[in-house]
């Protein structure tokens, strides 16, 4: 490992020698494995081996980047990059890369995930559990994904670090009938914490409850959000807290810093801790990552920053670089003091939404948007599921929803699946959440 780090440092030295003002190089050796399945059978098994060094340099406030795949090409690539910088244009808001030497937390990646054998075994276990719950004729599909990355970072401004990052994720959707489905996910950073049967059980249980769905009714409802759908909303809000999205007005949090944006029971943080599937000990400038409170007891406390955006906002970096845009790593909502069962028990009439997709905005700053719940949609009456519904759309406002959080469960779940990558959401640690006055619409 030290050899690779030395080579990564050489890239930076080379850039400085050729005239760069500042340079950062990050080498990633990634081994990624995936099993895709549908109709209860494995469709394909995939392996990616990826070797790359991301190089970013600044010359007279011109910021340029490239990727090198072979250390033999360093000289030519860095020369070419500097040539590009010299014909590029100045970025007046570039504030430099982070300066100083840092101590990083110890990486806790699980080496068992470097080349895990018998991948399809985990898939078959989840399928069997889902079928047991949803019925023998249930159809299931999904993905098992494993990641093991070794990351080496060197910066001309001081930071030097090594990190190992591992994750294993299973996403399974079960159909008990053509229009009755449930979705479960299981996400962990180590094999020890990974229980594929939990995802299968959730998918199967929900699919069973969702049988014989009726067309839903438009209206304004109290809604209990499952951790899976609430994780999507956490991704929306988490992205909007990036200082970059504030600057480009793609956020409902523009001009809301230190203002109330939610009730006191809402505390949102970004925390790529060891248990997160996006665990990391430093950001792309080499700044140690940390637990950042974004919304504390309903007040917007912080935007996410890299060194440049921090200078613009006259504050400190939060360890969320992205060399252009600060990025959330793993969004968490603090658990409340209500149990999941109590949330359901106390609901007189409302809906339970389990999953969603296709969240699209009319105006990010204003926050008007809609999203389409998928998988189980349930009517709750007097604390019990009384009906399975379908074909409803949540059409509301992102800031209004946050303000309408009425209760948060103690129980939380790590959630991440395909949709999060499609829509650019980070993984999240998400509770069950009760929201008041949620607007649901339908096709006419």
């Amino acid at each position: 490992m030290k050899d690779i780090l030395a080579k990564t440092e050489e890239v930076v030295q080379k850039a400085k020698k050729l005239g760069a003002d500042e340079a950062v190089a990050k080498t990633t050796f990634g081994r990624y494995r995936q099993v895709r399945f549908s109709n209860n059978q494995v469709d394909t098994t995939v392996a990616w081996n990826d070797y790359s060094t991301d190089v970013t340099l600044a010359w007279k406030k011109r910021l340029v980047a490239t990727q090198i795949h072979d250390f033999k090409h360093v000289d030519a690539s860095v020369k070419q990059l500097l040539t590009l910088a010299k014909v590029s244009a100045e970025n007046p808001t570039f504030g430099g890369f982070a300066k100083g030497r840092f101590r990083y937390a110890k990486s806790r990646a699980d080496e068992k995930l470097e080349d895990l054998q018998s991948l399809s075994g985990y898939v078959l276990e989840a399928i069997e559990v889902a079928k047991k719950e949803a019925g023998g004729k249930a159809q299931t599909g999904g993905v098992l994904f494993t990641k093991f990355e070794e990351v080496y970072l060197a910066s001309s401004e001081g930071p030097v670090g090594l990190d190992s990052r591992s994750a294993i994720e299973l996403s399974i959707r079960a159909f008990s009938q053509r229009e009755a489905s449930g979705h479960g996910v299981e996400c962990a950073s180590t094999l020890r914490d990974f229980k594929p049967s939990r995802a299968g059980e959730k998918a199967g249980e929900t699919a069973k409850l969702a049988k014989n769905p009726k067309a839903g009714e438009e209206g304004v409802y109290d809604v209990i959000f499952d951790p899976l759908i609430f994780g999507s909303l956490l991704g929306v809000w988490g992205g909007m807290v990036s200082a970059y999205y504030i600057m480009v007005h793609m956020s409902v949090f523009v001009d809301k810093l230190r203002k109330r944006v939610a009730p006191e029971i809402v505390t949102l943080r970004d925390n790529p801790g060891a248990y997160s599937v996006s665990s990391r000990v430093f950001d792309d400038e080499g700044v140690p990552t940390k637990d950042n409170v974004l919304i504390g007891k309903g007040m917007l406390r912080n935007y996410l920053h890299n060194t440049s955006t921090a200078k613009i906002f006259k504050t400190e970096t939060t360890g969320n670089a992205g060399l252009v845009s600060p990025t959330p790593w793993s969004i968490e909502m603090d658990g409340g003091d209500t149990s999941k069962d109590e949330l359901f028990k106390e609901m007189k009439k409302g809906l339970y939404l389990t999953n969603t997709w296709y969240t699209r905005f009319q105006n990010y700053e204003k926050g008007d948007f809609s999203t389409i719940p998928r998988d189980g949609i349930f009517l709750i009456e007097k604390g019990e599921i009384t009906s399975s519904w379908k074909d409803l759309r949540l059409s509301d406002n992102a800031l209004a929803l946050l303000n309408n959080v009425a209760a948060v469960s103690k129980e939380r779940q790590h959630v991440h699946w395909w949709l999060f990558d499609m829509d650019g959401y980070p993984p999240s640690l998400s509770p069950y959440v009760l929201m008041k006055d949620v607007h649901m619409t339908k096709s006419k």
Partner: protein
Amino acid sequence: MDEAIADFALEYAEAKKVEYAEVRAHSQVQEMLVLRNGFLEAYASAVNSGFCVRILANGGIGFASTNKWSKEEAKTIVDLAFKYAGSANRREKLVFAEEKGVETKWAVAQKKKIENVPPEERISLFTDAHKALTASKVKIPATVMQCSVDLATRYFVNSEGSRISSFVPKIGAYAFITVAERGKTEQAFRQFGYSGGWEAFREWRIPEKLIHEAKVLKDVITKAKAVKPGDMDLVCGSEVTGIAAHESCGHPMEADRILGREMSQAGRSFIYEGSEFWVGSKIGSEAVTVVDDPTIEHSYGYYVYDDEGVRARRRFLYKKGVITEFLHNRESAAKLGTKSNGSSRSVSYDREAIVRMANTFVLPGELSEEELVGDVRRGVYMKSFTEWNIDDKRFNQRYVGREAYAIENGELKGPVARPVIETSTLKFWTAVDAVSKKVGFDAATCGKGDPAQGIPVFTGGPSIRLRGVYVK
């Protein structure tokens, strides 16, 4: 790219007990510049190069890729793909629909070579676009502009004797603008895309289009009125026609989705065997014919051979309102007893080629735009859209107007604020009674695949008129 290593990988794979093997190598010169409020944030330039091996053995598929060009690495990934194919243990063995091997080379011509346009010229064209926009006297607190270039060289070989080389240059751009007025904001996103050279930039007329958007957004804030909800006629401009064609005609006709292979991600389809919707079923009016066609020269979704080496051609999805032909790759075609129609695409060497659209659009009719509007007593002309989405069976969809006008007694009146149509695929396409003769296209990036593969497409069509639909 080292074609000899790709050839070696294929030979090494063929020496194993495989039913089929292919090697696909890509070398993509990719460049991207990002401007915020007219200033360059960063310029990135890299070569993304590598190859993948896909093996069909024992009725299972294994896929492995690498960006390390060596024979040793080729052996490693072939061994992995072979092992994975064998470990599938499928009850139903997979086969691929029959194809003959093809040896050919193809390329997209550039009038003005992208490689010859220096970075400083590219940057200044976009900073100039921003200057023109800010000179429009509309208050614009934020803009983001991005330009991307992808010069893709591909080499495809398979165990059936195919050997196909290609070169496709693509240029894409987008702009996101926020307009502020009277303490309120409105926002618009525009995307541009082209297969070919830098000549695209002038054809796009970005400054002119962004100035138009800015003025439209200002009018939405200052002049537009909400529509009184109810049943009325709706004329959709080509941008709205195109998104509806893509979402509710193209996606549900993807055979992998119909067969369930995307069931846990992009979802299934309202079209499936045994349902009321299958080949031959009515899904729209006689005025509606929707095609997907990769062969439109210089379109964003252009190709001659797909990523399984199958010749591309036009596909009729809905013909005169009837479900006609699904989009297939070789795997889905074999399952439904037909041949691939060349719909298999991949964005990179490290992504599985899956069933994708190319350029999906409604075929034109005979009326002029004026004739379409002239026959509407009360309605809305939704020229473009902002928020949109559709459920994962591709049946319940919603489009919110960005630029929209009231229609009264056959004439366009003042702007309408954010009109919404929320309806089903069947109702939408059945309500169409006429289409105009002028076809327009918009570039888009279609999302599908796990890991995600955002793939370049065109959406488009003429203006279409829907009778008696609920607009709110």
